[in-house]
């Protein structure tokens, strides 16, 4: 008997999501565009079970690169509305669209010029009438007797929240590294808490040539060390510059007999550096900021202690997956 009931409940809930898949359309597209183009955060609000669904959607959005937070409608009336700004987008979750606490705060939010997206099952409700965009999450049947607890309707709202988050990932070109950055509990999180000295390459693994070396020999070093670049150091092991693939391309277009050139003619002087006691997270930040993949590690006298490559910071295997996908390491919010 219980198993039969369970089957029925699961079929009803599954059906409710399949129905949404058929109905989702223009309004959903508008909601994604509204969130994507907003300069603020996404603020979820809802009471009771819808509130719990709202909280889960917040967690999913945050994990996938869309800054968001939860606003409890009852607390909002007592001052928490101060967290809402004109630049935010408020997503209100209410199946009936008649939740008194939500409808009490909507006019105030609206008067601030903040955009409102409704996730509701009632297109004729006060919530739907007030919202700028209405995503229909109506279900044909609930799976709990007498509506004692919303079941299929909350499942539908939850699934629609996931759909929003995933659609936003698509818009942002959010990639593997971005995702891991927001999950510091994982192995990447451990890696980001390390110091640079714990992951840097030292000794023979550092590609470096002396000032005065011919480019022919520098190229050999670049090829041997397979990091796509070599450092240039003076007689006292102080960093003088760096030669990267980009520098080589530039010099090929400028000079005819490049092999005979001294490295000083080709190298980039004053390359970006970091110290060995800084964190790997800072190293990634610098790489992101200047769109580079190799950092020299120097001490206070600019003496070279080692190098660190993006592979070393993210883990080689993960990075290979990323390269296969043809994705670049990009900032999580390229349009902000």
């Amino acid at each position, binding site marked *: 008997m219980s198993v039969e009931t369970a089957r*029925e*409940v699961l*079929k*009803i809930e599954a*059906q409710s999501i*399949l*129905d949404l898949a*058929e*109905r989702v359309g223009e309004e959903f597209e508008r909601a994604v565009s509204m969130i994507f183009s907003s300069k603020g955060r996404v603020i979820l609000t809802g*009471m*009771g079970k819808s509130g719990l669904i709202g909280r889960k959607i917040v967690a999913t959005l945050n994990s996938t690169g869309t800054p968001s937070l939860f606003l409890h409608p009852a607390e909002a009336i007592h001052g928490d509305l101060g967290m809402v700004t004109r630049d935010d987008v408020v997503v209100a979750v*209410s*199946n*009936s*669209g*008649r*939740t*008194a*606490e*939500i409808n009490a705060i909507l006019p105030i939010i609206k008067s601030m010029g903040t955009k409102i997206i409704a996730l509701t*099952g009632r*297109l*004729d409700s006060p919530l*739907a*009438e007030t919202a700028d965009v*209405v995503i*229909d999450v*109506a*279900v*044909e*049947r*609930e*799976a*709990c*007797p*007498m*509506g*004692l607890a*919303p079941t299929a*309707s909350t499942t539908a709202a939850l699934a629609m929240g996931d759909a929003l988050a995933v659609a936003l990932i698509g818009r942002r070109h959010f990639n593997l590294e971005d995702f891991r950055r927001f999950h510091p509990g994982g192995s990447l999180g451990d890696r980001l808490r390390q110091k640079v000295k714990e992951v840097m390459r030292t000794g023979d693994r550092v590609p470096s040539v002396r000032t005065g070396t011919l480019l022919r020999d520098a190229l050999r070093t670049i090829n041997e060390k397979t990091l796509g670049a070599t450092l240039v150091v003076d007689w006292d092991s102080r960093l003088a510059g760096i030669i990267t693939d980009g520098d080589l391309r530039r010099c090929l277009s400028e000079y005819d007999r490049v092999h005979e050139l001294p490295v000083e003619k080709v190298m980039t002087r004053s390359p970006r550096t970091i110290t060995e006691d800084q964190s790997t997270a800072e190293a990634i930040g610098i790489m992101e900021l200047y769109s580079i993949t190799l950092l020299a590690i120097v001490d206070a006298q600019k003496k070279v202690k080692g190098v660190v490559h993006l592979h070393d910071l993210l883990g080689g295997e993960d990075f290979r997956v990323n390269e296969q996908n043809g994705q670049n390491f990009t900032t999580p919010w390229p349009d902000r």
Partner: protein
Amino acid sequence: MSRTDKTLPPRGLIADLITPFTADGKLDAESLERLIRLVSPHIHGMLAAGPSAGEGYALDCETRAEIMVRALEALEGKVPLFVWITTGNIEKTFSFLETLDHAAGTTPRDLLYWIDTPLYYHSNRGLAAHYNEASGLTQRRLLLHNDPELVSRSNKLLKRGNIRTAILKELVQIDLIAGLVFSGSMDRARNYQKACRLRQGFRIYDHNEGNFLDFPSMSGVVSIGANLAPKPWHAITETSLQRTGGDTAYPDFLHQIWKMGRHVRALREAYRDTPVPVVKAALHKMGLIASPRTIAPLDDDMSEPAKRILGKIKELESY
């Protein structure tokens, strides 16, 4: 696009009105109006001359028209009325539709809907063409009624008791058709839901009160129990459809609904096997209708079940 279509049938509790008769078998208009006035404040719509509670299968066109006119009057435009138009054959059904449409006069479109059980007189084949033809006879919307049990009682030798899902998919494209009153298995309910999902606002009412109490359809329920206990049925429907939102003292309210639901189920058990005679006998005992007479002759004495029902209603009155 407007988010609210006023011509859509209502969501909620649709009372499946019984048809009161006098002792000599004529329509008891006085009891009918009394019952409607008592029930109407608690419902979102009413089905008159329906095939089961209303014993519509045995009512001629004039009687159905009279019931319709009196019901519209008693309802005073507060909630819409659904009238069953089905007969044993196509020509007669069309003729009923025309006569009833004429009798309805200028009643607003959103206050009167037709209900038709197509398989009672027509096979699945050619149903879309049938309703396209019906569209020319009325400006009002129509709800389909799927009831394999009722169809099995018709004189026609039809292969199927249910509207085929593929046929339903065609029918929901027809503007005339605004919803479906459904009796049948939950699996079929889900298939029908799939067939109708592209038509926004299409209503699928449960005609099986048990299904609604267990897994409520978000369109609502067509309930014979609403004749006896309209207020509790109203409360349960409102909660099931989550129409009350957050405007109630939630935990206490839900506890009350839970208890009320148990009593409503018990009440339903008391009339489930022979609903019309038992409900009529109970209403008669309550002094709401003059006679418990039904169209089909009764072999059993209904006074005992009626007494049980009165006891259950008394328990429900405490809410």
